[in-house]
């Protein structure tokens, strides 16, 4: 255990701090402030986003250094500035291409994705294939140099805004369930794609249905080869689960709640002076710290090439749950103010707590539900018996 910041790191911290002070007003914050893409470019240029991605693919090209990454996260958190762009392209597609993409695919897609010029969506789930993803039936049939896709995806986040999709399709209908799947990438403007937004419980349309009718995609846009889709999807899911359980977000939220409880009052008394609320806040603070340090532990293990075993498998479950609990607590602390929504007078923080409280429930379901996570933890982490074979219904 060594969390000391040597002189090199102190210098690095000073550098990050100078950056956050100098450029704070260029950061996108709600309706005010700068544009997210400009911010992203600025961050990549300084090495605060896409930090370890090779220069050849549009990243900053630094060697992985947990401490520096942590310093960046800490300083951005302290300054209340957003980190770089995230989303399914940057968090899931880029690491997947780096791992299993062809050189041509890496060169073509990674840099513009990092710059926010290509927004991606993830076409995995189907009406009949959610938790049981490998049951997907959207078909891609070979025709000359192309695949021709027919079928439907559902719950596709940001499909209406996306430029490209990474998509799982069945290329070998006769192969066993997990072996007949391929991973394709294609533009959303390809003829035959229809996107129908789905309004969620938040009142916004965060996800969509996507229909494919004779959509032609060149065979060269298969990632890692035909029939390898399940393997690629698992690589991607690993990154998705890491992203969804991200402890930095919990830290940011906790900080906002502490501020809220120190500034908001009821009956002329600060929320912080209410012992029941304060106790709940402290319980959550301990959880936030635990997940933060747990993340450091995993990072260290990763860099040393050690397998952290079950410790890694719990992150999605615990991280998403914690974020949801934080939003739920903020609403309780706000009390009746916590009911307000949609531009209501008196609303706090633009209604973000209310939105998060709902949306985060979606994140508990998405990317592998809490129950599926528990299956994985008990089976792969604790070596308990796997699910019995599917029942015939």
């Amino acid at each position: 255990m060594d969390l000391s910041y040597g002189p090199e790191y102190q210098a690095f911290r000073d550098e990050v701090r100078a950056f956050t002070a100098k450029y704070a007003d260029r950061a996108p914050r709600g309706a005010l402030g700068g544009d997210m893409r400009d911010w992203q470019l600025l961050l990549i240029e300084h090495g605060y986003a896409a930090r370890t991605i090779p220069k050849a693919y549009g990243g900053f090209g630094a060697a992985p250094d947990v401490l520096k990454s942590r310093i960046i996260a800490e300083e951005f958190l302290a300054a209340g500035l957003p980190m770089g762009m995230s989303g399914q392209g940057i968090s899931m597609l880029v690491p997947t291409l780096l791992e299993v993409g062809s050189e041509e695919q890496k060169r073509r897609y990674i840099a513009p994705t990092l710059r926010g010029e290509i927004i991606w969506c993830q076409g995995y789930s189907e009406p009949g294939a959610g938790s049981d993803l490998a049951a997907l039936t959207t078909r891609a049939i070979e025709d000359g140099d192309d695949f021709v896709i027919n079928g439907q995806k559902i719950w596709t986040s940001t499909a209406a805004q996306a430029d490209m999709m990474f998509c799982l399709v069945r290329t070998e209908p006769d192969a066993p369930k997990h072996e007949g799947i391929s991973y394709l990438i294609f533009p959303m403007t390809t003829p035959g794609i229809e996107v129908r937004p789905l309004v969620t419980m938040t009142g916004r349309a965060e996800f969509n249905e996507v229909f494919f009718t004779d959509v032609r995609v060149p065979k060269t846009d298969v990632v890692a080869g035909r029939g390898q889709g399940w393997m690629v999807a698992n690589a991607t899911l690993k990154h998705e689960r890491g992203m969804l359980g991200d402890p930095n977000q919990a830290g940011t939220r906790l900080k906002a709640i502490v501020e809220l409880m120190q500034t908001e009052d009821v009956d002329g008394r600060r929320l912080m002076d209410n012992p029941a609320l304060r106790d709940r806040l402290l319980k959550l603070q301990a959880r936030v710290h635990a997940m933060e340090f747990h993340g450091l532990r995993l990072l260290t293990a990763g860099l040393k090439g050690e397998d952290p075993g079950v410790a890694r498998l719990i992150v999605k479950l615990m991280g998403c749950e914690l974020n949801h609990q934080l939003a739920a607590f903020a609403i309780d602390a706000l009390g009746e103010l916590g009911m307000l929504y949609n531009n209501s007078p008196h609303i706090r923080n633009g209604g973000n707590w209310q939105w998060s409280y709902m949306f985060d429930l979606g994140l508990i379901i998405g990317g592998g539900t809490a129950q599926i996570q528990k299956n994985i933890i008990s089976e792969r982490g604790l070596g308990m018996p796997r699910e019995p074979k599917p029942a015939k219904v």
Partner: protein
Amino acid sequence: MEFGLTSDQKMMQESLGRTLERVCPLERVRKAADGAAPDVLKAIAELGVTGILVPEEFGGLGLRLLDAALAAEMLGRHVAPVPFIASSVMAPLALLGAGSQAQKERYLPNLATGELIAGVALSEHAAGARAKAGVAAKNGKLSGKALFVLDFAGADIFVVADAFGGLHIVDAEAKGLERTALPTIDATRAIGELNFDAVDAEPLSENPQAALDRMVDAGRVMLAADTLGAGGRMIEKAVDYAKERKQFGRVIGSFQAVKHLCAEMIAELEPCRALIWYAAYAFDEFPDQARRMAAHAKAHTSEVGTFVARTATEVHGGMGFTDLLGLHYWFKRIGFDRQALGGPEKVRHDAAVAQGWVGN
């Protein structure tokens, strides 16, 4: 930067684990009287555990609180009926923080070897005074009452905090000192009550207030680590049992309800490990965070420990409830750890104060 254990630390933990496996099986735990098993104490003393925090110049290993936490985890894992938290952690910290050179020379070497056992009486500072407890110091003599004294049985000396946060060493045989054991649910640990009637005491007078805070923080981290070890063992036992026990023609570990209970336990407990490591490390490296992190480690691990203790018992069904299986030793150990040096609400309050969120 590295957030993890060194190979030395892993080795120390493993070798302590192996030793306890050998000298402290459940049958031995059952036979321990007053939370003491001298043979087990001797075995861990041979590994240096009793002197883990005592500097090398005084015959100890001179290690840090993280190392002590790793040892505490192992003691919890094996529900070892030995003094440790007070005698090997809090008392040495009292001497190192507030003792004179002569006092260090006099006590530390024997504490390090485990030949001298020190109880610690400061519950009133850590958890608040119950039953009108409180110790007054006047002209070098102590009067009053101290409750919930840790590592009580077999203690040769006591480190006692008075009502003003002064620290004193009292001989267990001193005139006017009345000792009463307080049986608890946890038969593996000994606590007691001290009644003082103008008892001779030796003050630890170099900055006792700061030392007192350090003792409380360190003790809390140890209790958290103990719960981590006990809880981890309970989960293992539950998982092993679930893989063997059959009902409805299949092992119960194939029922999703049971699998999910096990998954929830490990998902809750595993992050406690990182929290405890950090709290122990902060104790030595980031003193301004020490109080808050020790409090969080203690309170959070207690909450999780309570959940694990009941859930692992449930997974064992009726067998879990029996004395025969002995699972209750771990259940009770976790119950003890939760209340000692302040229950979760009290300890969280200390974390709020430490952050300036509220006054004392």
